[in-house]
């Protein structure tokens, strides 16, 4: 005897929920799996070196010493320099596109700046090797002598090195930071700017009021860019010189976590070598996880209010009560 329609429907619905939920669960399993796999395949290195892995500065696969400090140094240095270079430009773009630009320019300019994000990393790297690095070398050669005496600009003018890497990273990060910052600025309520204007503010002062309101979100946008710079692999490895050495100089060839993995993974001939590289990958994973989670929280704290207002506008609003 066939089941009554209502209970069959309920069974179908439950099956639907479980079925689609399973696929959603796959996403969670995937991320958990990544964490687990990374840990599992780096265990040899973790157990052998412990925390010294991150304090040792010598990376010598031949001798069997694996110190990953130079990679952390290079990663943080290049990412930090990229942020310093890119943030003013990215914020300037965000402000221009959200507050200042004439309407007819807005779409084409937005499209163009987003195009920067669409260029594959390998193309940036290729361009980096053959166009940027020679340019940087010229720049380094023609640096005035008094600057060359400073540790920040010391060393032979190779072209490849921290400066080239930071420049390329900055270019790659700009579209990310600027598009998120633009979302944040759009989420700032118009009344904040109006309040400033009504008190006699100039255009820039009113924009400042908007930025101050959305400052946590803008921090989040900058952090997101930082996270992106940390994980970038190909463009960096093609212009940074791939030398595992700690140096303050922008001119020095250095190394990053992502770059060393890309370069040496297929050459790793011993298990411990491979485990060491994977351990670096594990730490890279954890760092980007924390940075991304934190930045999304910051951004969400500003944009959430705008989303609430959006839904309120959709619902029939009684703006003026009957007198």
């Amino acid at each position, binding site marked *: 005897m066939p089941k009554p329609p209502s209970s069959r429907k309920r069974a179908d619905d439950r099956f639907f929920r479980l079925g689609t939920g399973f696929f959603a669960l796959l996403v969670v399993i995937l991320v958990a799996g990544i964490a687990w796999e990374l840990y599992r395949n780096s265990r040899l290195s973790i157990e052998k070196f412990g925390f010294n892995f991150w304090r040792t500065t010598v990376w010598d696969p031949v001798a069997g010493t694996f110190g990953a400090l130079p990679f952390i140094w290079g990663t943080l240095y290049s990412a930090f320099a990229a942020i310093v270079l890119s943030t003013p430009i990215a914020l300037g773009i965000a402000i221009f596109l959200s507050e200042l630009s004439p*309407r007819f320019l807005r779409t084409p300019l937005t499209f163009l700046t987003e195009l920067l994000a669409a260029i594959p990393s390998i193309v940036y790297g290729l361009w980096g090797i053959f166009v940027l690095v020679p340019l940087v070398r010229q720049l380094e050669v023609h640096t005035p002598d008094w600057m060359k005496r400073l540790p920040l600009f010391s060393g032979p003018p190779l072209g490849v090195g921290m400066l080239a890497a930071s420049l390329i990273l900055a270019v790659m990060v700009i579209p990310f930071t600027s598009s998120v910052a633009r979302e944040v600025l759009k989420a700032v*309520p118009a*009344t*904040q*700017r*109006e*309040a*400033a*204007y*009504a*008190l*006699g*503010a*100039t255009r820039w*002062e009113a924009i400042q*009021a908007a930025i*101050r*309101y959305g400052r946590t979100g803008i921090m989040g946008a900058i952090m997101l860019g930082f996270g992106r710079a940390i994980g970038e692999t190909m463009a960096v490895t093609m212009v940074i010189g791939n030398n595992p050495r700690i140096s303050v100089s922008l001119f020095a060839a250095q190394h990053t976590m992502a770059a060393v993995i890309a370069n040496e993974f297929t050459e790793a001939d011993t298990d411990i070598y491979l485990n060491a590289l994977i351990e670096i990958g594990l730490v890279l994973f954890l760092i980007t996880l924390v940075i991304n989670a934190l930045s999304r929280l910051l951004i969400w704290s500003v944009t959430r209010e705008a989303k609430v207002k959006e839904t309120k506008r959709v619902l029939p609003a009684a*703006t*003026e*009560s*009957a*007198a």
Partner: protein
Amino acid sequence: MSEETMTVIEPASPSMVTAPEISAPAPPRPAGPFPPGAKVRIETRGLSFFYGTNQALHDISLGIPEKSVTAFIGPSGCGKSTFLRCLNRMNDIIPDTRVEGEVLLDGHDIYGPGTDVVDLRRRVGMVFQKSNPFPKSISENVAYGLKINGLCRRSELPERVERALRASALWDEVKERLHTSALGLSGGQQQRLCIARALAVEPEVLLMDEPASALDPIATQKIEELIYDLKRDYTIAIVTHNMQQAARVSEYTAFFMLGRLVEYDRTDKIFTNPGQKITEDYITGRFG
């Protein structure tokens, strides 16, 4: 209002738009129901306003006398807020808008060339429908206008802040926590803070766009008492959809409809014996 004052003055009908006579050297008398000797702080002449091709205000001429409260009433969408925002050129920040006619502040057209808009907005302050304090401390909010306009020395700020907070009847409630965030105040307190912020720069005119519409009755009452006090020193124009409020706080009331000024007269006359039928219909609640 005493019987006496009602009979002495002949209310000027708004349809009588005063145009400058060619031979007369005296400036044209501003349109409005106030005594001839009253000083008119801010007035409009033939003001029309356009959102793109859509005309929102049609040829509005009225004057707002000083040290009084003038209320703008009308059904939603009638243009009263748009009109208010023309008085301090806040509509400038909306793209694709156009103004025709004149708005005179102490005789100078604020839409004329050579007007310092930044200074104008200091002289003509505004309080908004929903309070919008900055995410800063209470004293920083009040001091904001003073700082950006460079109106006083650093050392004078605390005193100016206190003065403004006293003027908006908020001082006693916040004097112990001036450095805490303004967002921690209640809705009514935030609105009084916004009023204090506007008063701190010592404006001549204060524009209020439905200042109490988002507040509960008790907070509303406080705001109304405040407005009543403020009119001793300031010229106030207030947009309100609440007619009882207009009747309570204002001396003069202007009724707007579909972007036109229908009637402008003393408040007691508008609410007891309006000149136009349509005004009477609105007041008695037949529409709106």
